[in-house]
């Protein structure tokens, strides 16, 4: 019983980590808390749905088509909104992405209506492998987990091993100094935004395959992603995976104790981790912020 709960919790954690990936990357590299994260995920789901329905192709294939579109949207987002708002302090991006979320939600409502949708992946939505008669592993859940690990690992490798990754990291540390050694920091940031939004598209697609979505699903998805990022240490990609798993396992154990414990247990872990970091950081709010902003490992 407990083993099953923990196993399902780990798989759930993979889903949270996938949701949180883009958020974590954007915060780690660009120091932006993207409050439109959930809405962009839902937007990607609508894009994938539209492509899949227009060309009668599988949602996975449609996602491949949607990725460059969303990456371009990320580039555009950086150039038109984020870059401008970053210039006027760290609070402005928070406000502008919040506004963007409201605009996106209502624009999607105008375009797609109120109806609930889901990406049609046939039996994969509910197929499973029976490990024992009592324990079943959902095929989609496992696929989500594998994709999350691959994506987070891939991004980590990209940041540490490729020239563009190094440029992004350098810009993230200090844009002015990076420019001195010949890095175009605007380009580096825009590339980072494009990558981040592309990962959000993957997350949105899996969200839409796992459950249903409508134009207002976004904000509710943001909270779990945000918690996974904070538990894992903001800005650390592997940390996000661990944070997601910690959140998922805590929730499932909480719900085994009492059904009301599901969300509470998750929030409790989030709070304890936050409080512990605060304590370690020596109770100084400024060092707390620095502790939260641990650079990508």
């Amino acid at each position, binding site marked *: 019983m407990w083993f099953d709960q923990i196993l399902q*919790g780990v798989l759930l954690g993979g889903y949270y980590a996938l949701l949180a990936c883009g958020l974590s990357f954007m915060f780690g590299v660009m120091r932006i808390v993207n409050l439109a994260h959930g809405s962009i995920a839902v937007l990607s789901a609508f894009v994938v749905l539209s492509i899949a329905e227009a060309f009668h192709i599988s949602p996975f294939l449609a996602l491949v088509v949607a990725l460059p579109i969303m990456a371009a949207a990320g580039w555009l987002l950086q150039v038109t909104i984020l870059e401008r708002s970053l210039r006027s302090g760290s609070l402005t991006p928070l406000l502008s992405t919040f506004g963007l979320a409201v605009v996106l939600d209502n624009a999607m409502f105008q375009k797609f209506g109120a109806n*609930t949708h889901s990406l049609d992946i046939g039996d994969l939505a509910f197929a499973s492998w029976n490990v024992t008669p009592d324990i079943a592993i959902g*095929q989609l859940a496992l696929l989500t987990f594998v994709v999350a690990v691959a994506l987070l690992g891939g991004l980590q490798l990209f940041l540490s091993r490729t020239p563009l990754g190094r440029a992004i990291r350098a810009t993230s540390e200090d844009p002015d100094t990076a420019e001195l050694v010949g890095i175009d920091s605007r380009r580096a940031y825009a590339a980072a935004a494009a990558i981040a939004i592309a990962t959000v598209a993957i997350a949105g697609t899996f969200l839409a395959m796992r459950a249903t979505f409508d134009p*207002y*699903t976004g904000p509710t998805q943001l909270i779990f992603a945000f918690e996974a990022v904070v538990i894992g240490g903001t800005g650390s990609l592997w940390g996000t995976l661990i944070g997601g798993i910690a959140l998922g396992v805590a*929730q499932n154990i909480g*719900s085994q104790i*009492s*059904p009301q414990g599901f969300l509470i247990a998750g929030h409790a872990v989030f709070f304890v981790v936050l409080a512990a970091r605060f304590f370690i950081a020596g109770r100084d709010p400024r060092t707390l912020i620095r502790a939260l902003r641990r650079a990508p490992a």
Partner: protein
Amino acid sequence: MSDLRSRRTFVRGAGAVAGGALLAGGLPSLRLRADAAETIKVGFISPRSGPLAGFGEGDPYVLELVRKTLGKGLTVGGKTYAVEILDRDTQSDPARASTLAKDLINGSGIDVMLTTSTPETVNPVSDACEAAGVPCVGTIVPWEAWYFGRGAKPGQPSPYKWTYCFSFGVKQFFDQFVPEWHGIETNKKVAVLYPNDADGNAIRAHLIPDLQKAGYTVIDPGGYEDGTSDFSAQIARFKAEKCEIFNTFPLPPDFATFWRQATQQGYTKMVKIAQIAKTGLFPSGVESLGSLGDRLLSGFYWHKEFPYKSTLTGVTPHELADGYEHATGKQWQQQLGASMSLFDVGFAALKSSADPKKKADVAKALSTLKTQSMVGKVDFTSGPVPNVSPTILVSTQWIKAKPGSKFAYDNVIVNNVTDPKVPVNAKIVPYNS
């Protein structure tokens, strides 16, 4: 902030009252001359965007029909009035619903308020009307949540003078469930998945004891929080208890998560009756479940097979459903009939009032109103509690549409125990067979 706002509303309200008194007292001749084209203003508040937008999706179509009918005005006691309907969208926000209601009352000077769809809409609007002394009719809110949820106490006289509600309630769910479940042989073990929210707790408190009295074993793991994204613990419990009947009152996205996971983990294989409520109300929600939506059971407060036409517009259920499908390309849905019935009832009250421009007269007409509407009989004189008239719920089943249909699922009526006049057009089929 709230202080400021309430003061502003008060000042505005006081201004309107003073202005009204001036007009009425100081300019009698003007008022007489205006009589010929006197206008009845009707407020209509429903959720048309936001998470509850599914409810309001058909409202523009219903409003169009109503406005067409009322284009030549409304005749009450030999006098013809022009009618203006002021429709507003709550954006699914209870605070906004309240603000909109106050604006319509104080700013637009409406004569009667109509409101529909969920406690989050109907309750705040009703409260605003009660406070301001404006007659108000609400529907599609479980009447227990409307009557008791706003502060009335069982056994005591009704605290409401201005507000009325006709809708199904928890009791109607019970009346519908048990005879329906008798149609299929089961082990009488009911798995219930009720959230820890207003609706879930009302259902838990009232429905579970009734089900137990009726001979069912109820397995209730306890209320979960809305937005839960993993239900492994509940599923394991239902599997261990081998519950063949499943009942839930969730938010729609939570149900999609649960039902897919329950299928993954092998619970739905043992389910014979899957009775869902609050979700699966509209075709798009069932379609989004893919093949798992087939054979789900739902309670409908209106169906296109209902035998009642709209008393206001004269539209029949089939005309309404087909007209909507034709105009929008979307499948018909049950809120169409419910929104239409709200206009039926509201205008029946205006017609039977001594003077539709006098709020006290309209409220008095409501208190003794007996009328037909698109959802059936509405009678405010004989409800289980004052100010309330319960309406019916019929048991329906979602089944895969026949090949060639434009839509993925059809909805058929499988039991009519709450109103024998509604035709049954299919036999209930077990979820697994």
